[in-house]
């Protein structure tokens, strides 16, 4: 494995567990205001600055719900902006209950962020109603974005088989109709978390079809080590 600074290390086996990063919001002004009112996944660092402020959280998954509840402890009001029609489609039931019961958290469904404006710092967000297309402008100094996620796997291009969205394929997802992946040279099929390269395994969110839960990721990490042992025994 080679690194950005030119150095390298060798190893018998590799476990890919590089996870995902938040997807960036697309729209005029949004990129310019990152770190100046628009934040990705940094609710903890910025929370103290949001005291008595109007805060928007974008996204409908658990991470967005957790951030909304955390920020609501200090903020004047937190608005959760969700594209889907129901929070329960994307968020765990226990979080939906807390979000809906919180007096300072409100939820806007079927709504998306289209643009942001502000001189030194975020001042306004434009929100669009997904059904009617109507756009409203709201005053807002703080927007925390937790929309979807993308795996960071470009560096594996041409080496490890990935699905259309870049997630790493492993185990049964590699073998169509029981046939091993192209270029596979061993007379066994890939182990459960093994990628298209023997000895290279994938665990957690970076793996295609993963469960996106902390407990599953922890379990897959442990299981991958067990499979590494099995692989090493055959070397």
């Amino acid at each position: 494995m080679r690194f950005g600074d030119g150095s390298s290390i060798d190893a018998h086996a590799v476990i890919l567990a590089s996870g995902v990063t938040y997807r960036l919001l697309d729209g005029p002004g949004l990129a310019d205001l990152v770190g100046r009112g628009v934040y990705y996944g940094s609710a903890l660092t910025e929370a103290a600055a949001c005291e008595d402020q109007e805060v928007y959280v974008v996204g409908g998954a658990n991470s967005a719900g957790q951030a909304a509840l955390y920020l609501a402890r200090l903020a004047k009001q937190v608005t959760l902006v969700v594209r889907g029609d129901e929070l329960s489609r994307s968020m765990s039931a226990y979080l939906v209950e807390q979000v809906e019961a919180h007096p300072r958290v409100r939820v806007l469904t079927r709504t998306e962020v289209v643009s942001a404006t502000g001189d030194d710092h975020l001042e306004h967000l434009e929100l669009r109603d997904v059904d009617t297309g109507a756009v409203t402008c709201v005053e807002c100094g703080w927007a925390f974005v937790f929309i979807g996620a993308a795996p960071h796997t470009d560096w594996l291009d041409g080496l490890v088989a990935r699905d259309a969205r870049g997630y790493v394929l492993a185990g049964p997802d590699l073998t169509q109709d029981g046939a091993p992946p192209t270029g596979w040279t061993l007379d066994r099929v890939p182990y459960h978390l093994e990628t298209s390269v023997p000895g290279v395994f994938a665990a957690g969110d970076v793996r295609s079809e993963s469960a996106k839960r902390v407990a599953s990721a922890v379990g897959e990490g442990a299981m991958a080590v067990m499979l590494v042992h099995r692989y090493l025994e055959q070397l």
Partner: protein
Amino acid sequence: MGSGPPGPAEEDALEPTAPPVRAAIVTVDDDPGVSRAVARDLRRRYGDRYRVVRAESGPETLDALRELALRGEDVAVILADHRMPGMTGVELLEQAMDLFPAARRVLLTAYADTDAAIEAINVVDLDHYLLKPWDPPEEKLYPVVDAQLEAWRATDRRRPEEAVVVGHRWSARSSQVREFLARNRVPYRWYASDSDKGTRLLAAAQADAATLPLVVTPGGEALVAPDDATLAEKVGLATTPTEAFYDLVVVGGGPAGLSAALYGASEGLRTVLVERTATGGQAGQSSRIDNYLGFPDGISGGQLAERARRQAVRFARRSSRHGTPWSSSSREPRAGCGSATGRRSTRTP
């Protein structure tokens, strides 16, 4: 520049994130009357030197402690009632150890809880165990707290030395640098470049407002607009693997990667963990995970990651035949013709 910021040591009152000088004494009891009474007694004697923080439940106390940690403040003593609904005092103190390991831990209990409390002394390494009622405080409470404060002041807490960040109030890179330090648990103070203190620091480092942020390392080295790799190296994060060959390379320091590193190291594999930014992954940025097995009162992603990191390092030390068991690097792994940005690696042989 020399060690530490120049000029008088006063705080800029206008800086919302600048920590106050007083360390905190934290007290919790689920009976509001008791909680208020303890806090009142503590304030009367220590209010001029310590900030007294009061809570009425374990989770509320943890929130307050996190807030204090986030603001870079220190906690000298935690005085907890044991029998509280939801989270007992012992459970609270156990979790508080993650946030303020040097804080002195005192359990304040009724006579009926004696057995449970004594049993728990080993679990949380309790410093003192005080029976209710504590009246008169001059005889029962103050001598105990005095002794704990003295012990706390004498401990070599080596108050984790702080980095200093000076940047534009609204700069993306300043925000990134602060987040990088926070996620790697490097304590820092932040000053806006147009504040008095920020201006003085910039002048002292002979930096100008055009090249921000300025980072002053705990050792006193001034870094002008450093990239992540430089920052990681200069604030003492391990950035270079110590071996050329490993049994197992784990790419990524989130829950899956930490778990893989822990199990790999515990089963004797020479293991290195490579991470671009900081351990914890997406979960590490979550303020509260309520549905993770084994944590009935919830846990923050950062705490979960830090515990896992410590656990992996412990196994690595145990099975290590070599020197430093933990090194990390700001580097990006490449396979074939990949790209490169900063990535941190953590070695657990």
